[in-house]
């Protein structure tokens, strides 16, 4: 408000940038209140998956729903994380096509704040989804086989991976013509990526040529890491593999996304 009388500041300081990030994250989360369908999307949908797979397929795949839950829950958490990441791109695209983004860019705020604001909000949604799935899973009989530290490590790993994966979402959000295209992409690219993994069934049950893909699929590796941290079993290798994948995804997609972004705006 003081801008009318004081000489304008030459640049944003980083503290202001962080505050703007939080304000924009607040905005993204408040939106959910006026758009309850989105809340259903990242709350009811994962629970449906969980119930469906545990009780419909669990017995057939694993002999008993209870054992299957232990196997599948960590993977379902990973799968859901990948899907929730798409909200970054979806929201970004909506802002770009509806003109909200131009309004934000005309304000004296940090250039990166609209993006970091979205991603911060996304992390809150991610944490909520993980907690929800874990909670419902435990009501259904899932038991953590490790300790609290390992559970936090799993959450941290998931969030790191979500951050990395957000860059793919940003890229899609920037190049897609409208929000519907972002959704089409999520379905056509993310369904195979998440299903052709060992989220729902053990890798050994698949044909050899498919196993080759499943074994390198980041969703598989991250699911194994999450399984190790929540249930028990090997941890070091899949965690290292997950972090490597996260680094590769950032290394490839962040520069392309930023380039595409600069071209679009």
């Amino acid at each position, binding site marked *: 408000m003081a801008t*009318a009388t004081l000489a304008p500041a030459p640049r944003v300081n980083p503290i202001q940038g962080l505050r703007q990030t939080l*304000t924009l994250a*607040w905005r993204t989360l408040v939106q959910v209140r006026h758009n309850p369908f989105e809340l259903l999307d990242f709350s009811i949908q994962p629970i449906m998956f969980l119930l469906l797979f545990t009780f419909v397929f669990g017995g057939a795949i694993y002999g008993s729903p209870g054992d299957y839950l232990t196997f599948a829950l960590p993977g379902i958490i990973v799968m859901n994380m990948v899907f929730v990441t798409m909200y970054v791109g979806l929201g970004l695209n909506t802002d770009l096509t*509806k*003109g909200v983004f*131009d309004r934000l860019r*005309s304000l*004296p705020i940090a250039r990166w704040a609209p993006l970091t604001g979205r991603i911060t909000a996304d992390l809150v949604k991610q944490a909520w989804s993980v907690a929800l799935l874990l909670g419902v899973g435990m009501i259904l009989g899932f038991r953590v086989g490790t300790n609290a530290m390992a559970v936090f490590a799993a959450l941290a790993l998931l969030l790191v991976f979500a951050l990395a994966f957000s860059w793919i979402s940003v890229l899609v959000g920037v190049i897609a013509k409208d929000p519907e295209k972002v959704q089409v992409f999520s379905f056509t690219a993310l369904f195979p990526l998440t299903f052709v993994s060992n989220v729902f069934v053990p890798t050994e049950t698949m044909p050899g040529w498919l196993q080759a893909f499943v074994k390198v699929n980041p969703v598989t590796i991250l699911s194994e890491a999450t399984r190790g941290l929540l249930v028990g079993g090997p941890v070091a290798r899949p965690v290292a593999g997950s972090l490597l994948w996260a680094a590769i995804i950032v290394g490839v997609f962040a520069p392309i996304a930023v380039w595409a972004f600069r071209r679009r705006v």
Partner: protein
Amino acid sequence: MNHAIWAEGLVRRFGETTALAGVDLAVRTGSVLGLLGPNGAGKTTAVRVLATLLQPDGGHATVGGYDVVKQAHQVRQLIGLTGQFASVDENLTGVENLVLIGRLLGIPKVDAKRRGRELLTEFRIDDAADRAVKTYSGGMRRRLDLAASLVGRPQVLFLDEPTTGLDPVGRVELWDLVRSMVAGGVTVLLTTQYLDEADQLADEIAVIDHGRVIATGTPDELKAKTGAQTLALRPADPADLATVVTIVGELTTSEPETTNGTVMVPITDPAVMPAAVRRLDDAGVTLSELELRRSSLDEVFLSLTGHRTEES
């Protein structure tokens, strides 16, 4: 500072198309410039460059004395932007939208809320303050858009086609709001496709076509230059068209144009009409239609550029 907005030789290309082909603009502090032109003339691109959303490929511009490229951050602290492209968030309420902007501008939460409510009352959307914007009518959205650009008390306001899509009542309401802002000392750059809108609000008009400013002046100067009114004559017998063109052509400086059996010509001197009627009567030509009306943008364009606006 004499000029709140100053642009010199602005060039901007998008691939093969040249949106701005060397635009010069000067808007005196506290005045209103109407940037008038058809769709695709470069109006929005010009506003986007001046509002720091687009980098020009050539030329330079200052807003409030600050360079829009090198001192973009300073410029952003002085401006407000409303238009077809800079919008509010549909999934927030009216008051949330204004609080969001206030918070981003560094206004403390309580003050941002107060300022938001204040603006909503002033713009008569206080009844809908706590409803999501997607439930708003077109007019309410435009008013909220305008309110959103005023949260930071800007010195320079860009309004990109502020009334496009509004009904006549909504237009007049918005005009009143713009006038009250101007009374508060804000400099306004307004783009429009409507001559009457520029006429109503602007101290000066710049006519833009194909990325170039082709005429500038006060509304009166421009009308004097282009013909404020158009005379339309339709002979009862189409065979008389040539006679009508000849007679009217002798009375005016502009070249009459014939479309669908009607002869039209922009005129500046009101005496032309009775003179034309007299001489046509002498020549024995019967008119089935005779009309003197305000020039449309299309006709202003025609007389300025020699071509019609492409859209219409």
